[in-house]
């Protein structure tokens, strides 16, 4: 108790009373430092721990019995994107960019006069050509992802002659070739890439003049799959 007495004795002298204010203010500053560090750490933890678990299905409608796509048919890409949030921050999935490529068998077979640009994938088993059948980006109604929870969004994209005649024509050609060669035009290898932007909801949005790294702090970008180009 001696230190209490010593401390109390300082109150007698006006210039010593300032030390009480200094101690109190230092405590306030310490709280600021600790709270800010904890807030920053939890955001960084969210950046490193949030995971994207996507699943996709591609279905063909309007095909021949062998699976060749008809002119009035369609290709439907359905993506189910689940974001797992083990962090303590409240998040929201806000925008999505996606691309999907179908293996271009006619190009691989060396057919002439194929006026399209494919992405070339080379691995230990050979060289493959992929045609970009789906691509796009969109903002979605924010899907809330609570702390230590998950959020799921399901999106569907339709490729028809009316929506994109050029891409539809190529996919139709590939499916017809696959139906002829493999006996089934709808079972083709696909490569998918998706990028989702997840906003940290319980942080204020950076101002318009803020440094770009602040925006990247409040927005978590997750990717899945190879982006062929």
């Amino acid at each position, binding site marked *: 108790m001696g230190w209490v007495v010593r401390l109390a004795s300082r109150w007698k002298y006006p210039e010593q009373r*300032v*030390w009480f204010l200094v101690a109190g203010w230092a405590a306030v500053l310490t709280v600021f430092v600790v709270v800010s560090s904890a807030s920053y750490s939890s955001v960084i933890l969210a950046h490193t721990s949030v995971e994207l678990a996507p699943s996709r299905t591609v279905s063909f409608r309007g095909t021949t019995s062998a699976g060749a796509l008809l002119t009035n048919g369609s290709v439907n890409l359905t993506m189910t994107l689940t974001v797992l949030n083990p962090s303590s921050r409240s998040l929201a999935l806000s925008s999505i960019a996606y691309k999907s490529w179908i293996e271009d068998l006619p190009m691989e077979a060396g057919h002439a006069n194929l006026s399209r640009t494919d992405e070339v994938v080379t691995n230990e088993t050979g060289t493959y050509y992929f045609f970009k059948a789906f691509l796009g980006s969109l903002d979605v109604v924010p899907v809330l992802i609570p702390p230590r929870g998950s959020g799921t969004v399901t999106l569907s994209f339709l490729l028809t002659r009316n929506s994109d005649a050029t891409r539809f024509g190529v996919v139709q050609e590939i499916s017809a070739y696959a139906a002829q060669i493999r006996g089934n035009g709808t079972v083709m290898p696909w490569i998918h890439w998706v990028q989702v932007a997840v906003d940290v909801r319980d942080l204020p949005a950076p101002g318009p003049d803020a440094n770009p790294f602040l925006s990247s702090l409040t927005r978590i970008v997750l990717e899945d799959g190879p982006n062929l180009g």
Partner: protein
Amino acid sequence: MRSITRTLVLAAVLGGASGYVIFYGVFPVSGVPASGEASVPWMLVLLGITSVLVGLSTENLSEMIFEVFIGLLLSGAIATAMALSPMLVGVAFVSPDSVPAFLFHYGFLLFVLGFVVDLVGTSLGLALRERYFLRRRLPVSVGSERK
């Protein structure tokens, strides 16, 4: 020894305030209060209150100068420690080597602001101490044994 301890303690308080202000200025979204853009008046209030209080607790000019310069060094250390705090929870987000340079790059003006406000504020505090504490006490404490 008491003088050195007092100088270091007060420099730590100055460094704490300036370090916090630098961190808040660079990462306002994680600050207290969290905001989209750093508030200059808020930073000035924090630095001003701290430096005046430190000045009021400082005994003489040479101590004050030491406090301000040591506080400047400590502010960089504290801002860096705050930016590296995610490592305490096992997260290495960026290379630790790059953090001080990053803070210095984006927080350079805040270092300057902190240093200037600390100099002005501690000088003001020291002047107030001379004016109100020591002169008022002088007739009473002449001949007293208290150190």
